[in-house]
């Protein structure tokens, strides 16, 4: 999606830039979470570095390790017009704030009959590959996609991360913003300052006509690599980067699969009741007669994220599995 000069950035600096721009543009934006202020090094990986120095430690605050208190404070402040961006550090730590996220952030608009709403953004990072083992790398997005009232955004590259984070902060509903740690330093298209990317709109990362590879976050890169390889055999795979997984961009998905008549869904979360199951089901419900093969689903092994390097590498679906799945749809 780059145009003109091939300026590059990283996911980490794009997140930092989006927060910086949002804080500068709107005095109601505040950022808080564990270690986010510069006195605590601006985040464990530096995502918020410089923000408290530029925008003040009253607006960019480090918190105690108290996930319920963090999300609760974000919810309460948002009810009266503050635009909090709360950081939960790692996606696994949302488990200790589930009451606040699922029972409150997601439901207060409905339960109040629209009298209040919760315009918060909850940032978190995750992803296997860094040897962090079973409690620091899960993809739990299906839980949140399953919950009415939440929006779930999961960018794969700097440009999308920047534009989507600004859109989440603008949005009137609670948004979960999932950052993939192993992608933090991967170079990618630089954001255009101030440019929003709409929530709920997928991106066709590579056009094709023979099969649609549907993915998000890190697996988009694996899908693109497989598509390039297959192209040498004359198989043209279309690759869709969903970017938002709630709400799903049905229009883009179904339009693509209606053309290619074959689909493979790939994500790092485990397959069982994963987002891929929902997507496969929607495709079957809408395009049953057009499909040339059942939709293939790939996810990580059905086990906790393992530590040992060979296990961790094999845990995540890779290019080989994607290629094999594509070939199953073609046979």
């Amino acid at each position, binding site marked *: 999606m780059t145009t003109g000069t091939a300026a590059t950035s990283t996911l980490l600096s794009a997140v930092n830039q989006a927060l910086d721009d949002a804080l500068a543009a709107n005095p109601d934006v*505040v950022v808080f979470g564990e270690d986010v202020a510069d006195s605590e090094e601006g985040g464990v990986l530096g995502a918020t570095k410089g923000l408290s120095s530029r925008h003040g430690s*009253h*607006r960019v*605050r480090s*918190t*105690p390790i*108290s*996930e*319920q*208190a963090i*999300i*609760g*404070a*974000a*919810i*309460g*402040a*948002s*009810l*009266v*017009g*503050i635009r*909090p961006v709360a950081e939960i550090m790692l996606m696994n730590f949302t488990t*200790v704030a589930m*009451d*606040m996220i699922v*029972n*409150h952030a997601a439901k*207060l*608009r*409905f*339960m*109040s*009959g*629209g*009298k*209040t*709403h919760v315009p918060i953004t909850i940032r978190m990072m995750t992803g296997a590959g860094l040897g962090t083992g079973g409690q620091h790398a899960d993809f739990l997005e299906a839980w949140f996609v399953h919950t*009415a*009232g939440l*929006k779930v955004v999961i960018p794969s590259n700097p440009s999308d991360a920047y534009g989507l984070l600004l859109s989440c902060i603008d*949005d*009137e*509903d609670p948004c979960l913003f999932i950052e993939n740690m192993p992608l933090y330093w991967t170079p990618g298209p630089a954001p255009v300052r101030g440019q929003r990317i709409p929530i709920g709109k997928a991106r066709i990362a590579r056009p094709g006509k023979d099969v649609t590879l549907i993915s998000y976050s890190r697996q988009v890169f694996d899908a693109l690599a497989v598509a390039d390889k297959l192209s040498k055999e004359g198989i043209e795979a279309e690759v869709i980067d969903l970017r938002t997984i709630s709400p799903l961009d049905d229009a883009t998905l179904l339009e693509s699969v209606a053309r290619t008549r074959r689909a493979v869904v790939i994500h790092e979360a485990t397959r069982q009741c994963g987002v891929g199951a929902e997507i496969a089901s929607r495709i079957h419900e809408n395009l049953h007669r057009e499909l040339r093969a059942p939709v293939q689903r790939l996810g990580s092994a059905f086990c906790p994220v393992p530590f040992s390097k060979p296990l961790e590498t094999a845990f995540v679906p890779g290019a080989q599995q994607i290629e094999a799945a594509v070939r199953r749809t073609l046979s």
Partner: protein
Amino acid sequence: MNQARSLPDAPVLLEIYRRATLIKQNDDRFRAVIQSGKLVMPYYSPRGQEIIPAATSVHLSDDDYICTIYRGVHDMLAKGVTPRALWAELAGRVTGSCKGKGGPMHITDPARGVMVTTGIVGSSMPIANGLALAAQLRGEKRVTIAYFGDGASNIGAFHEALNLASLWKLPVVFICQNNRFAEHTRYESGTSIGRIADRAAAYSMPGEHVDGNDPDAMWSAAGQAIARARAGDGPTLIEAMTFRFHGHIFGDADGYMSKEEKASAIARDPVVLLRRRLIERGMATDAALAELERGIELEIDAALQFALDSPYPDLAELRRDVYATEIQP
């Protein structure tokens, strides 16, 4: 805080009585109507706990916020939610405070500062912090009250919230309505400390243990804590001792408490005692109070009729207020 330590004067005490009576009479009617079968809902009666929010809320205006819990109709009425909006909501009607979509456990009325009512024990406190943070960030003088029960002080959220409120000096008052039972579990069987107020020391904030059924003591403690929060001096934890007359949920067999304990609490009905005190102190006549009570009965009659005459929400409401934009069918 000399003003707050003094006793409430006649107009204030009368206003506390008006609010307490409003709560008592509405609650009496809710239970009667539920028993009649006309309204069907789980109901957590606050009868016996009226004085706590009545004596607190006279220090507050519509600009101040409260977060309360499923046993909370007393807190809502004291803060100014109208019986019409409340009855219609409890009847599940579209004219209710939340279009009938929240129900008795989720009353919300931002115009009166009733910002969140939660059905989850312990969850009022972290959100109250956020409301207080907003006021602090904007330099407003608003105060937020977090109401909760004794059982909630054993939940992690209580401890996280008090720590953060103290650390950030938030303008919030934590009011624990200690009715001595966490659902069916006696206080001593579930709480490791004799007084919840003593837990404040762990978070470097004042902890006040008061008789929540005594309007003088409750008014004074709440006034001091609210003034402290408004002045920017940070949070206070108040443990207000009280007793619930109708168990955890209306219809409870109360098998977990002794009959004598309950009878003795009801014999010291705080609303009846306040009425007596007003007359003894020469602040009101029996006739004037009877007139006030009749007025409330008429208001309840009208609210009940309004609720029953109101339509149920359109089924399209299932798709509304889930997100800012209506979900397409």
